[in-house]
């Protein structure tokens, strides 16, 4: 990392922090009694988790018939939620792997929470392929293994099976990556604690001592994992897009799907990171580590990916017309002007139009606007998957089998329930681990702390004066 920093870069750590203060600020929230806000949030989240368990049990007990799927519409909220969650689970790995390769220092402020969020989102996503089978106890059928059912094997030609491999690989690597980063931080927590807490953190930090050899191994492992995760960022949502694009259903079968799904996934992932980080930084008082500069950078990513998604939407519309293929044209006519027009409008408004306000610097640096926008994008990306799945299936080749779909309370309950599952996991995480990567933030202090760079940097002014004096 270059020690010379351009004078126009913003500092990324504010408040003239020392290394000791960084440790104290980030570690202390895990050592205090939880605040009232946390407790209330946790109760609500656990209630949501309860709803999840209840609706899933209901589904298993009464069967998939308790959902409103029908012969025409075989995928509804289940797969919409699955794709939505798996998309959200893309930001963490993008931040930790790809931004690492691009040497973006602002990633250090948000990578820990984003990776945690990734893992929890993938956990939520992973529920749906199982639940939507209806017979949960046969879930192990998705794995290819020598079996006693004769020739009954999973279909290796099916993207649904590739999903199983892609997502479990992604989950494993993301988890390892996250945990690797946590090891030195767990050791820091250990060194600050006593008794059973100390024993626990000593175990989870594998007896880390901070020896040079430890750091060397840590760095090489991080590099290997970053190398492995980079293609994974692309591969997972590519294969999810294959679930649709390998078919011959108009509106699903289009070659732009893989990169466009990946862009959309990063888009929604960043939106969720923003939603969580804006609350976390406020509640845990981490405004000096997750600064407006961080938020502005993330809003730029939102603007870029939102616009890429917009280019893809318009490309699809144009090529549908250009193709001269009647069914393709009708599929898109139906999307925009059919009975589900409202979901298309919701998608366009939330994903393409509204992020355009981030062209204005003032809005990119406004916490309120960013928070509202992050919710908008979350909604918009849910609509996108609903548009792709439900509206396409509702009207296929044979008009006599056209149908309309509204979810039952069970389906809605499962979706809200996964939010409960997600927030339960996230809230526990904020209690047991530092939400900002302590060791990584320290590594950029000298090149991004506001006492070293930016308008208040005394060191830089000194060197500049020294330079002028020597002339």
């Amino acid at each position: 990392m270059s020690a010379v920093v351009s004078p126009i870069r913003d500092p990324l750590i504010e408040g003239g922090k020392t290394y000791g203060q960084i440790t104290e600020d980030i570690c202390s929230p895990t050592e205090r009694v939880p605040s009232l806000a946390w407790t209330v949030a946790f109760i609500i989240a656990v209630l949501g988790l309860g709803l999840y368990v209840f609706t899933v049990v209901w589904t298993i007990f009464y069967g998939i018939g308790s959902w409103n799927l029908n012969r025409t519409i075989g995928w509804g909220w289940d797969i919409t939620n699955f794709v939505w969650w798996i998309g959200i689970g893309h930001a963490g790995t993008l931040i930790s792997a790809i931004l690492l390769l691009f040497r973006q220092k602002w990633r250090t402020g948000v990578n820990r929470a984003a990776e945690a969020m990734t893992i929890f989102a993938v956990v939520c996503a992973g529920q749906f392929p199982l639940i939507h089978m209806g017979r949960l106890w046969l879930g192990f059928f998705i794995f290819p293994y020598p079996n006693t059912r004769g020739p009954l094997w999973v279909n290796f030609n099916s993207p649904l099976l590739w999903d199983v491999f892609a997502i479990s690989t992604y989950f494993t690597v993301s988890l390892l990556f996250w945990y690797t980063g946590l090891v030195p931080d767990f050791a820091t927590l250990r060194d600050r604690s006593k008794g059973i807490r100390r024993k626990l953190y000593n175990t989870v930090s594998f007896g880390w001592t901070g020896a040079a050899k430890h750091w060397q191994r840590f760095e090489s492992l991080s590099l290997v994992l970053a190398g492995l995760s980079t293609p994974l960022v692309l591969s997972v949502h590519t294969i999810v897009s294959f679930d649709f694009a390998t078919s011959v259903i108009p509106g699903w079968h289009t070659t732009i799907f893989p990169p466009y799904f990946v862009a959309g996934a990063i888009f929604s992932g960043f939106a969720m990171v923003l939603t969580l980080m804006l609350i976390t930084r406020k509640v845990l008082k981490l405004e000096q580590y997750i600064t407006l500069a961080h938020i502005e950078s993330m809003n730029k990513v939102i603007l870029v990916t939102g616009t890429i998604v917009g280019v893809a939407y318009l490309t699809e519309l144009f090529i549908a017309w250009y193709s001269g293929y009647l069914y393709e044209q009708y599929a898109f006519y139906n999307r925009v002007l059919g009975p589900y027009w409202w979901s298309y409008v919701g998608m366009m408004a939330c994903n393409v139009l509204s992020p355009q306000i981030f062209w204005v610097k003032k809005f990119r640096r406004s916490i309120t606007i960013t928070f509202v926008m992050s919710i908008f994008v979350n909604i918009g990306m849910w609509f996108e998957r609903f548009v792709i799945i439900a509206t396409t299936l509702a009207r296929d080749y044979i008009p006599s089998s056209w149908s309309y779909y509204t979810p039952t309370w069970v389906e809605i309950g499962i979706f809200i329930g996964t939010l409960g599952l997600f927030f339960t996991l996230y809230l526990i995480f904020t209690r047991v681990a530092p939400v900002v990567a302590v060791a990584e933030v320290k590594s950029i202090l000298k090149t991004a702390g506001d006492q070293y760079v930016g308008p208040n940097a005394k060191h830089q002014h000194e060197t500049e004066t020294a330079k002028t004096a020597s002339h």
Partner: protein
Amino acid sequence: MNQFKFAASHKAVTYGMMGLGVLCLLITFLIDDELHTRFWSNYLHNTVFFTGVAFISLFIMSAFITAWAGWYVTMKRVWEAYALFLIPGLALMLVLIIGLWGGFHHLYHWADAEAVATDKILQHKSAFLNKGWYTFGTLIIMGVWIFFAMKLRQLSLDEDQYGTTEYKYHHKMRIWAAAFLPLGGFTSAALVWQWVMSVDAHWYSTLYAWYTGASWFVSAMALTILTVIFLKFMGYLEAITEEHLHDMGKYLFAFSIFWTYLWFSQYMLIWYANVGEETVYFQTRQREYPVLFYGNLIINFLVPFFVLMRNDTKRKYGTLVFVSAVVLIGHWLDFFQMIKPGVLHTAHEVMAHGHDHAHGEEAHHAFMMGFHFPGLLEIGTMIGFLGLFIYFVFSRLEKASFEPKNDPYLAESLQHHV
């Protein structure tokens, strides 16, 4: 040395290259079929390839400015000069436009009024695939690109001259660069559909424009590495070290993989769904152009992947020059295989018109130099265009110092260490 001097001997070499190009085009024209299919398709191929390199250089530069990249500014003059090649690019495109209106070439099936009259699909597409759109789309869109290229160049030169520590010019560049990104993204797709995809007028793919963009990106990066290393050998660009080359090597590596990813996405989805209207594109290439089809993947994926995977190969001149040269030719071949089969098919149809045998089987399968594989004439033509590109770029390089002395990131770039 920060001030480039275009040596007379080098100038002479580029003149020689251009002369060879003109000679090859002339020979191609004379030995060609009645429609001059080989001549015109070679012209289109090289024009699109080098214009695309110029466009994507402008796009990369805009993206880097927007992303606050610091490491590259010691070599930004190279990309500024590349981007300005859009001006001769437009002039080259004008020849194609004149040819379109004058009926001198039959590159595009949709431009043939007789064919459109009996073809329902082409009639449907004629609202987009017509001479008016082709002409004004090219003129207006390329005009806008040129405007941005010149604007960024001017701001960059002004910064050298009048720049202060308030970095007023840099802030202006950020605005123009950010505005260009969505604009360039949208408009390049429209032009690629017109220029290249419409060669196979019936066929369509939503990914096409992104795929060609990735191909241009790798070509531009390869050409940049070659230029930078050449300039270093001439004693210029001392500020660029193996650290910068390492980063460029990483870009070459990463985007070669990204190109392969897009290639695979497009091919796999079409192959898997097996819809006749779509598979015909790849079937033609796989059956009748197997060398190009498989060679494309070997040259543009396997070579950069295996050579550049190691750390040290991205830091050595030898391996970098080797891979850059290979993928530059590889992506030139990629455009060759995008353009030639469609053009040849259209030519067969036009020539067979009025004859009893609509299009004879043997005409499709017989090997034709310059279509199924580039011959010496194609290579000569490519060298000619490359000569023009180098001549133009080096003349621009002469007009400004290599060191952007008032750039806010200059110190970072000078100290760059990976």
